[in-house]
């Protein structure tokens, strides 16, 4: 007897679940609910008849029937939710814009610097970002083989600090205070405190008395130098090729053009092949196929000597066998590669801080 009731219940459950699974709208779902669980529903009938069963069967069958009822109820609920979900989705305009988070961002110079730091760190360079911007004449000029009254000082028209002419504590230098004209000013700060071999990159703000489409009185530079026993100008060319290709995001060619910077010898300006026209000539490269990037060369013996390296070298040395250390140095603007990469023609935009400019990057 009990087995029959039990199998009937099982059969009823399977049948009901199968029917529920097929339902696609809430109306037929409600009629199914009535069919099985309504006042006159099939399961309700079974439950009503339990009281007629024998006392030993009643609890077991009762429990089973309740379980079936719960199971059907939850199946009905689930199906109802999914049927309702399908319906409401149809009412949404999915092409409406999503809610964007509040937009913030880093300045193009910071973005470029982040990349520059990453690239140089991957080449084992030590990164310096916090050397003083208010600098002594010694570190900015004299230690770099630019004595007072040297014509090369005209190339970098300098801002001086009013009324400041005193020693800078603990830095060993003396003389006028000025706003550094190049991050090359980091060279002696570093070299005096460290023993080669080393590879260093210094970045930050620099200042020159200049203002037009391609010059602003404040700008950012990065200046690299490496010293070891056997670093060559060919290494310099190789390094610049790797770095400039990374920074500009395209494989470039590098060429050296004769130039004069008192702190390097031999010295050169270096150009890279124009990334916009692939060297064919365009307005950005002034139809030369090349972009001027910066200055570079082999660190001048006077600079190395000032740093206390190669102290036995100098004009008096007869032969070069006593030279211990040699190295290369290069420097260029942070803004310029960004301008080239993003086709920006006016440097002043970087410091106008118009959000319509800044938010583009």
């Amino acid at each position: 007897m009990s087995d029959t009731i039990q199998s009937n219940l099982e059969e009823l459950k399977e049948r009901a679940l199968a029917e529920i699974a097929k339902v696609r709208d809430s109306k037929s779902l409600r009629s199914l609910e009535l069919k099985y669980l309504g006042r006159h529903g099939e399961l309700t009938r079974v439950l009503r008849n339990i009281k007629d069963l024998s006392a030993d069967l009643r609890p077991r069958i009762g429990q089973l029937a309740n379980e079936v009822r719960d199971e059907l109820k939850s199946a009905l609920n689930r199906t109802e939710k999914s049927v309702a979900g399908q319906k409401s989705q149809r009412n949404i305009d999915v092409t409406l814009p999503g809610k964007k988070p509040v937009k913030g961002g880093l300045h193009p110079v910071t973005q470029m610097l982040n990349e520059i730091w990453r690239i140089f760190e991957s080449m084992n360079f030590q990164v310096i970002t916090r050397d003083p911007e208010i600098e002594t004449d010694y570190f900015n000029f004299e230690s770099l083989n630019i004595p007072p009254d040297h014509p090369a000082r005209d190339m970098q028209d300098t801002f001086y600090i009013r009324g400041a002419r005193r020693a800078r504590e603990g830095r060993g230098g003396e003389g006028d205070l000025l706003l550094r004209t190049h991050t090359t000013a980091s060279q002696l700060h570093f070299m005096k405190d460290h023993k080669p071999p080393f590879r260093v990159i210094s970045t930050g703000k620099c200042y020159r008395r200049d203002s037009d489409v391609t010059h602003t009185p404040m700008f950012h530079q990065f200046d690299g130098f490496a010293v070891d026993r056997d670093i060559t100008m060919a290494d310099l060319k190789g390094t610049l090729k790797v770095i400039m290709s990374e920074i500009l995001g395209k494989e470039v060619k590098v060429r050296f053009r004769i130039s004069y910077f008192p702190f390097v010898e031999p010295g050169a300006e270096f150009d890279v092949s124009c990334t916009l026209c692939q060297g064919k000539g365009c307005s950005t490269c002034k139809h030369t196929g090349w972009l001027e990037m910066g200055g570079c060369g082999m660190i001048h013996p006077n600079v190395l000597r000032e740093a206390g390296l190669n102290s036995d070298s100098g004009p008096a040395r007869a032969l070069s066998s006593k030279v211990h250390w040699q190295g290369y140095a290069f420097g260029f603007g942070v803004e310029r590669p960004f301008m080239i990469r993003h086709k920006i023609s006016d440097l002043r935009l970087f410091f106008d801080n118009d959000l319509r400019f800044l938010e583009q990057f």
Partner: protein
Amino acid sequence: MKVSLSWLKDYVNIKIPVDKLAEELTMRSIEVNTVEKGAQFDGQIVIGRVVVVSKHPNADKLRLAVVDIGREKLKVVCGAANLEEGQKIVFGQIGAVLRPLKGDEVKLKKAVIRGIESPGMILSEMELGLSEEARGIMVLPDDAPVGKKFRDYFGTNDTVLDLDVLSNRPDCMGHIGVAREIAAITGSRLNLPRPKLKDKPQKNCPLKVEIADQKICPRYSALVISGLEIKDSPKIIQDRLKSCGFRPINNVVDLTNYLMLDLGQPFHAFDYDKVEGSFMRVRAAKNNEVVTTLDSVPRKLTSGIPIIEDGKKLIDLAGIMGGENSEIDKKTVTIVLQAAVFEAIAIRRASRILGHRTGAVGLFEKGVDPAGTMDALAKAYDILKKQLPDIKLELIVDEGRSSFPACQIPLNPKRAEDLLGLSWDQAKIKSALVSLGMGVEKNQKNNLLVSVPSFRPDLSIEEDLIEEVARILGYDLLPETVISGDLAPPEQEKDRRFSQELSQYTASLGFQEVINYSFISGQLISRAGLKAEDHIEVANPLSDEQKYMRSEHLSSLLSCLAKNIRIKEEIRLFEFGQVYFKTKSVPEEKLILSGLIVLQKNEDSFFQAKGALAGIMEHFNINWSEEEISPDQNVLCPYWSACDQSGAVKYLSGKKVIGTCAPVNSAVLDKFDIPSDISVSLMTVFFDAFSAASQKIKEFSPLPKYPSVYLDMAFTVSPEIMYKDIEAAIYKAGGKLLSKAELFDVYTGKQARGQKSLAFHLEYRADDRTLELSEAQGLHDQIAGKLKKLFGAELR
């Protein structure tokens, strides 16, 4: 500096096209800025004379001109305002081809202009291709021959290179030096004439020259020449001067300019008869002496400036500009032609002190070759003699040093290879150096001994010679190699990664980074309520806008805001960089991050700024406390007066201030032209203290084992009671079992009836058992009781 191609060809055979030449020079020697190819004038362009000017019957701005071009007179229409009767002008006949610098060629056709036929055109410099723009027609000197082809008259069909000579290359400041470079890089022969003074000095005109200070003037050479007649220079000299941007004046002045452009040696001519006492002395000036220069400007001197005096007076601002009182004029018959060498630094200083720069200064400050003065004078005499066969050489003066032996520098080819990463054989090295005018001998042990002539003062060490070899043989031959070598891992600059993360995180909170100039104006300083005299001042700013170094970011950020407020409603800006402080000794630079939050007035930017700062401090795991700032407190914020005095807080880690937050005073906003209907607050992070306070490694706190009981509590208190005190009291009363008190609502509106209503979620939990509701409720009531007792809090 401009050089003429035809002039260069006097000295070197140039076998390559001029564009190629310009490229080679730029790569290996001297940067060529521009190549101006000589204007090509059509044969139909002739010189004419304006005979009559009359009104155009149909146009106000046009006139009619009758032009005489020799074989005929033509009536043409002209629109130029500078047209006048009697002018010598350049006339384009029908069929003439015009080649302006910009745009295409134009062939002149017969035209009818406002009803009047015009058989040709009076031309401007622009139409002739002589300049990019012109005001009116080109007017020629009165002696220009009517009817002559303009190209035969004007002549300069020359190609001109505009050069940027490197500051260490005085030898390239003349055509001869440039020709030497061209010979070296193109492998051509250099043909330099070696002029000699053949005439014997007559010695009718005595002159004694004394160098009082040889440091100022290492060598003074001069010729006294008599029998002169001042007149125009020959055409070739005039044309070449014009090509190089000089205006021809007379034969003597032109000669000095011509030779300066040729040799890079400045010349000066004195009128011999104006030099009193047949005596000249070169010395350093004393303070307050005055000399009036050729341009009629009296110049007050300071001690050390090089001057020349005669027996009675100062006659020359030596090495910079001649004196007015010894100037040559139309009556001059005898001159002292000077080719002296003044010391570079002395001239440079003098020029800077006097604020007066001339072409001579540009040469002397680079270093003029002292060995070349006598050759230069011989050449000058030669040129003058050809123009004026009757002149006589009266006297040769040559004071100071006259011997300048070549400097000897050893060069080890192995060293060149080590430095460049590329090797050349000795023969190539030698030929490169020889082509530049150096002597090369073999030293012992395969080394070279190089003799550097005195015109190359830039070469003093082996590395200098290596550069010469590398550039002449070609930097393009250098291979690209990868730097290698043993290297310890580089040490990291303290806090750099941290600073990178700080700006990145701040940007992620919706702040846009800006970078402003470090300079600000006195006006901006005072708008921010600060004093200019507390700031570091730039001695030579570009403008008053950039006179001081800023000690805060606020004024710059407010300027940015004023610029952008019309573009966007809700703005968050930040700047991360140095600010500069005046101290008794060394200026101090401090790295700070400042953020500005801008909202509509009905929203409170202050609590958004506080929240952002709290978010940043939590992100960097900083244990902080906050304190209200009393108005008289100086908290490392020089801009304090710009902020609302009530309602500003500072953040501390231990006793160190790591940041601040405050609403910006609306009166200050007004000064920056920011509308008063918005709410602006500023947060600042003092980077070094902030970074030191950050615990870079977070310690794990175990997850709770037992469930919490959550109960809410809302009550009103009087408005002057501070949240900070209430929070502290809640935690104290709650004890260990109160794990968190979180404020979720503050209400001070009408229904609070002048009171402040606060609502908290309180979380109770025990670490060692499941907390019963009844126990939590007991504690909850205890807290409420305490708040009533301490603050008169009424539960709602």
